[in-house]
Structure formats: structure tokens, C-alpha cells
């Protein structure tokens, strides 16, 4: 005869467990939106439905995250966009992003733009004009965004990760409250008896 406790253990056995808070992270690089959907346990949400809404609320596009939970979307014009992610099991998450540039994001990580640091007397190139300076600054921003974006995702993973200390603290708090209530009850009972 199969014991209920054994069946219970088998039923709850699974290869992975994670907390259930569903998160959506996104950042912009020129007119390209990079994002990722994941649970607060760090597991990637593959195949999550991502909807993109314009400022006026109408649906612009919908796409699905890849196997790593990531997605990339090019937008036509700058502005604020609302991203809505649905995990398919009842979890939804929302994020607003602002696209501020019309420039095409470069995939070349090494810039070949000519530049000179202001006040650098040892530079071999002469000071660039205003247009080249603006280009240079834009490429620097894009390069920084590419490097910082994944770091921000990691930071959010770490921030949202459920820690053992929090679990134990919560459990301790619950039993502490119960103990306080019983102590108070004992005092009340003792007063009535006396």
C-alpha cells in the first residue's frame, strides 16, 4: 500500500524551485530597447509574452522572450514606452522606458572616431569639431549602456533574491508573535484567577 507521505514527497519533488515574484528589466540603447524577464529566484522566463505600448496606450508590438528570457526591440521614434510582460501562469510585470535618441546603435565595440581629449597636449590629433564631439559622446553613451545594462540586471537579480536570513527572520517573527500572545493570555488568566 502506498503511504500518503511518500506520495506527497514524490508529488512535491521537482528539479528546481524558485520564488515566484516575476520581474521585468529593460534599458535603452539609442532607439533600441533591451530587456529581460525573470523570476525573483533568478530563473529566466523563456517565452514570456512582451507587449509594448506607446504613450497614448495603444499596442505597438508584441514579442516573446528568447530561451534566456531576453528580448530586443527597435522603436521608430523617441518617447516613453510601457512594457508589459506576461509569464503565462498568472504573473505579470510592467516597466516604463524612455527612448531619447534617434541614432542607430552601433554593434562595433571599438570606435574608430577621431577625437582628442580637451587640454591633452600630447594628443596627435587636432581638436575635433562640434559634430565629431557629439558623435563621440553618443558612442561613449552607447558603449557604457551595453556594459552597464547586464550589470543592472545582475544587481536586480541580487536585490530580489530571497535570502535565507529573511526566511528565518520571518519564521522567527511569527513564532515570536505567537509566544507574546500566549504570554499575554497567561497573564490575563493569572489575573482572573487571583
Amino acid at each position, binding site marked *: 500500500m502506498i503511504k500518503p507521505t511518500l506520495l*506527497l514527497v514524490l508529488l512535491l519533488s521537482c528539479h528546481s524551485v524558485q520564488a515566484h515574484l516575476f520581474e521585468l528589466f529593460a534599458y535603452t540603447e539609442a532607439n533600441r530597447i533591451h530587456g529581460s524577464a525573470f523570476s525573483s529566484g533568478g530563473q529566466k522566463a523563456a517565452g514570456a509574452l512582451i507587449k509594448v505600448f506607446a504613450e497614448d496606450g495603444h499596442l505597438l508590438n508584441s514579442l516573446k522572450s528568447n530561451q534566456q528570457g531576453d528580448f530586443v526591440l527597435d522603436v521608430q521614434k523617441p518617447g516613453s514606452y510601457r512594457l508589459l510582460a506576461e509569464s503565462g501562469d498568472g*504573473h505579470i510585470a510592467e516597466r516604463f522606458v524612455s527612448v531619447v535618441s534617434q541614432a542607430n546603435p552601433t554593434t562595433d565595440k571599438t570606435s574608430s572616431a577621431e577625437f582628442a581629449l580637451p587640454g591633452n597636449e600630447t594628443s596627435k590629433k587636432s581638436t575635433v569639431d562640434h559634430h565629431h564631439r557629439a558623435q563621440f559622446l553618443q558612442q561613449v553613451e552607447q558603449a557604457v549602456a551595453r556594459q552597464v545594462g547586464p550589470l543592472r540586471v545582475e544587481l536586480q537579480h541580487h536585490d530580489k533574491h530571497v535570502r535565507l536570513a529573511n526566511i528565518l527572520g520571518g519564521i522567527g517573527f511569527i513564532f515570536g508573535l505567537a509566544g507574546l500572545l500566549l504570554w499575554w493570555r497567561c497573564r490575563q488568566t493569572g489575573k482572573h484567577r487571583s
Partner: protein
Amino acid sequence: MVKQYGGATIAHIPDGVLSAPVLTGGALAAAVLLAVATRRLDYDRIPQAAVFAAAFFVASLVNVPIGPGSVHLILNGLMGLILGWTAVPAILVALLMQALFFGYGGLLVLGVNVFNLALPALLCGLLLGPIIRRAGGRFTLLWGAVCGALGVSLTAGLVAVSLAASGPEMRPAAQLVLAAYVPLLIVESAVTAFAVVFIQRVSPDLIWNRVSPCD
């Protein structure tokens, strides 16, 4: 600049999702439940309430993969069956701890979440407790499954109503919650059934005590 309000699940509605009237109504309803529960509090069940509150607190951390998605246990049906009215403050404390320690749910929406979970728990205790006690140990597995299913079904319905009542833009989310509760129904029914059978074997007084916990 980015803004995020997190996700809505079948049990935890986060802050910033529901409208003010729904938040106010839910808080008032939860306050009424809590006031009645406080007056009918069974101090002999405080230790059991603490254990169940801790189990509820931890249960939301354990996700069981079901196909493309995943579900986590609620256990409100089991809590209502064993604790009766004491389940209301137990659920309140557990939800508060989840909001403070994990960020699940929220403080403004605490009343709605408490109501959505505690009312089904109470109904499970009121409706199924006497039936299970009269059964005298027969069909415990079946009635335990019914208890789990009833708790989840009522919770899903209340969550969907809470979302739908907050505005037309939340109705797709309400439909999504209802669609997602089916796998949870299956898992919760099974776990509750086995839990009730286990409690019957190791501590039958919790179920077959002479006084109903809902009296």
C-alpha cells in the same frame, strides 16, 4: 527612468494594481473578519496557528513547475479546516511578513489579500469541517482534496473580482489569473488531501476535536 510594480499572482496582488475603492472595501472587509476572529480566538490553537502561518509564509517561496508555468501552494483551505477563525490572524501575519521580508504583495493591498485568502479559509472550515468530522475517518483523502480545491477556487474568484473591479484595463489580468489557477487547483487539492490524511494519523485531535473551531 523606469517604473515597475512587479507582478500579480493568484494570491498576492501587489501595490499599485487595484483601485482605491477596491483597496478600501477590501481593507474594511478584512477588518470586519479580523474583529470577529479576535473575539472568537481559540488560544489553545495559537501554537498550531503559528506553525500554519510559518508554513504559509514559506509555501509561496516554493514553485512547482507545471508545464510552461509554475504554481505555489496557498494552503488556506487546510488552515481554515484546522484553525477555523484563528486562520484569519494567522493569514494576516503571514502576508504581512511576506510583504515586509520578500516584497510579495504590499502593505496598501494587505487588506484585500487577507480577505481573498481568509474568507475562503473560513468557508472551508465552516462547510467541510463538520462533514469531515461526521465522516469519522472515511473518505478523508477525498474531503481533503475538496477542501484544497474549494480554497483555491474561491481565492482565484475573489482575486479575479478584485482585479476586474479595479477597471477595464485589469480585466485581461483577471482572466489570466482564472486561466492559471487550474494547475494550482490540482496541486493544492493533492497536497491538502495528503496533509489531512497525515494529520488524521499523527494528530487526529486537530480535526476531530469535540468543539468545532468555527464555533
